[in-house]
């Protein structure tokens, strides 16, 4: 069985894919995940999930080429800036 491991580096941060491990069952998966992604204090938490349990979506149909659904070529940055200036509110702090 293949298990995918997601790692949270610090509390509150998003989990990121760390890698995958092969294990006979969930208990082995837990043990191996702890060893490979947790023993150096590099993780706050782990998500370990059987690859088979992950729903994968990779087909995104757009038969009629409705490119007006897309945002490319439609820069908002300038418009937002002007709107903010008119409203007198500062831009939110960069994240």
């Amino acid at each position, binding site marked *: 069985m293949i298990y995918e491991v997601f790692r949270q580096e610090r509390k509150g941060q998003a989990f990121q894919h760390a890698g995958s*491990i*092969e*294990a*006979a069952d969930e208990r082995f998966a837990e043990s*191996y995940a702890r*060893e*490979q992604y947790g*023993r150096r204090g590099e993780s706050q938490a782990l998500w370990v999930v059987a690859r088979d349990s992950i729903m994968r979506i990779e087909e995104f149909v757009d038969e009629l080429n409705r490119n007006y659904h897309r945002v490319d070529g439609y820069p908002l940055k300038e418009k937002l800036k002007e709107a903010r200036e008119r409203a007198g509110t500062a831009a939110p702090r960069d994240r």
Partner: protein
Amino acid sequence: MKERAQLLLEIADDELILGWRDSEWTGIAPFLEEDVAFSSIAQNEVGHARALYELAARDLGTTADELAFDRKPEEYRCSELVELRLPEWERTIARHVLYEQADAERLARLKTSDDAELAGLAAKIDREEVYHRLHAEMWAERLQAEPRFIAALDELRPLVDRRKGHSPELAELWDEMTSVRRSQPAGTKW
């Protein structure tokens, strides 16, 4: 020799020699994940040995390195179980299972000792051994119906508490284990 130091050496020798033997799987364990896990267990055992040697060294007025590497093979107090070179995975796992059971009982006794230093160190070691035991139990469960594993358990069980004398394999291991230290030119400081 002081009684406490003797007890400490017995456990430390078990952990050092077993850690050394287990580390022989590094790079050649049955699969990658197990390689990482088992190597980590081996490292932990050597770490436990160091802590135990340090305590014994204080009692005996020497150093941990001298206790670990400067004694003659026949002076080691480890059980015959940990000495053997076991190039078969099912025998290695059988030893792992038997050792963790015996070690758990030993640590449980030490944790209730009146000697606060000893009880404290045992508790610290036991917190890591929890994961070794989980690992051993998972494998035992997985191999429980495997005839080679059952035969290995039967073969090795009598060696768990055998501490009188050593197998010739300890001398071979000792030779390898201490070769770097023995090659130290006089006066060298590590």
